[in-house]
């Protein structure tokens, strides 16, 4: 006979120990990423990581700081329609939203935008989501402060105090936000979303805090999406932004988005 109580006590102790080790573990993981250009996780699956401070997880108890400015560089030339759709599906799977067949009211955190140049007749597509502006209009207009920018530049909705007024959706130049029109159940525990509140791309903040990359970045073709810290000069992202021609969508609005594009 095994005492259930003893078994449970052991489990509890182990769980606590794991929690304590978590911070250590994540920084170790970041170190592994930093030292190698690419780490093979499984056959046919590679995790690309660049620079020393790429996606380094903070200790669990440490608040996000403004020393970091998370950003993304999206190379439109490396995407075809199917690639973009794969990113969309990865986001859906990760964050638990889906196409319910009601395109007018269904949430879309990330979407495929098809562009057709009227003059050159050239057509291509790219992924479009919250651009994580440094001067976000949605944060400006929110009456309660639910629409917020984290110190590290990630723009989020604090659904705890969102009253569902939808003024942020009026203010967003990128149509990045969706309103939850109906009751939801069994959301992902790291991506809560619910009726009557506004939501948008979180840059997979739960992954970023864990030292991982956003789901869409992992699903994108190699090099098509580069995630990293714009404030860290040695990061691949900062190097690229410094050296290649990048574009901001609606740059005329001076919102300084964290998401940049190439080859539009």
């Amino acid at each position, binding site marked *: *006979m*095994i*005492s*259930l*109580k003893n*078994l*449970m*006590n*052991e*489990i*509890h102790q*182990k769980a606590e120990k794991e*929690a304590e080790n978590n911070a250590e573990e994540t920084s170790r993981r970041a170190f592994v990423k930093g030292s190698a250009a690419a780490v093979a996780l499984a056959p046919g699956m590679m995790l690309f990581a660049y620079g020393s401070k790429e996606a380094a997880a*903070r200790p*669990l*108890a*440490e*608040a*996000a700081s403004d020393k970091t400015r998370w950003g993304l560089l999206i190379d439109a030339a490396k995407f075809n329609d199917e690639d973009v759709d794969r990113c969309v599906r990865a986001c859906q799977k990760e964050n638990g939203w889906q196409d319910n067949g009601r395109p007018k009211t269904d949430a879309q955190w990330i979407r495929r935008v098809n562009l057709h140049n009227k003059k050159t007749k050239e057509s291509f597509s790219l992924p479009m989501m919250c651009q994580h502006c440094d001067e976000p209009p949605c944060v400006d207009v929110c009456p309660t402060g639910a629409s*917020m920018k*984290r*110190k*590290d530049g990630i723009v*989020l909705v*604090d*659904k*705890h105090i969102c009253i569902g007024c939808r003024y942020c959706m009026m203010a967003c130049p990128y149509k990045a936000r969706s309103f939850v029109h109906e*009751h*939801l*159940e*069994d*959301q*992902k*525990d790291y991506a*809560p*979303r*619910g*009726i*009557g*509140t506004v939501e948008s791309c979180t840059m997979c*903040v*739960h992954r970023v*805090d*864990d030292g991982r990359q956003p789901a869409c970045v992992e699903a994108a073709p190699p090099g098509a999406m580069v995630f990293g810290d714009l404030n860290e000069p040695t990061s691949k992202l900062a190097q690229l932004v410094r050296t290649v021609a990048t574009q901001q969508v609606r740059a005329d609005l001076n919102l300084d988005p964290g998401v940049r594009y190439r080859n539009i």
Partner: protein
Amino acid sequence: MKTVFNLKKHLVALFAVLLLGTGLQLTIDPAGAQPAWMPSPPKALPGTKCDADPKWMRTWHMRKLDHKRDQTVRDGIRTKKFSLKRCITCHAVKDESGKFLTVKDERHFCRSCHDYTAVRIDCFDCHASRPDSKKGQGAMLKNNPHDKTGRSSSLKPGDKTVASLQKYLAGETK
């Protein structure tokens, strides 16, 4: 003066009625047992330890949850202590068919007291009210308050649950 006197009289009468009512309620129930009208939330997973004294938590859990939610969303502090997820991990209960109950079921661990006090729970409009069953988090044992046999304190070594727990301890699963 007259109105004041009347008011007092009424208050005394009201108090007496309330007292009488309470007394009747108490006498109806068998001695020693908790009155049937009191909430009886299901017990947490045996062997687990709460982040604070359970008595204190019963009264003040909302403060801790509020504080924790602001820390997590606004600052990105992701410690596990006092997080809603952690509450659910130990307190979630399964029904007869072995599925975790959602907050729609009145046997859900939050419902009993919240129904009793008529306090609406806001959390589960956005948060899942049960652990993700695929990941196997949360109570791994049947812990149904309506099923008295589910709380045995010892198990046989060959039991499936015990085997999975031992595997976890051995580090084979997460």
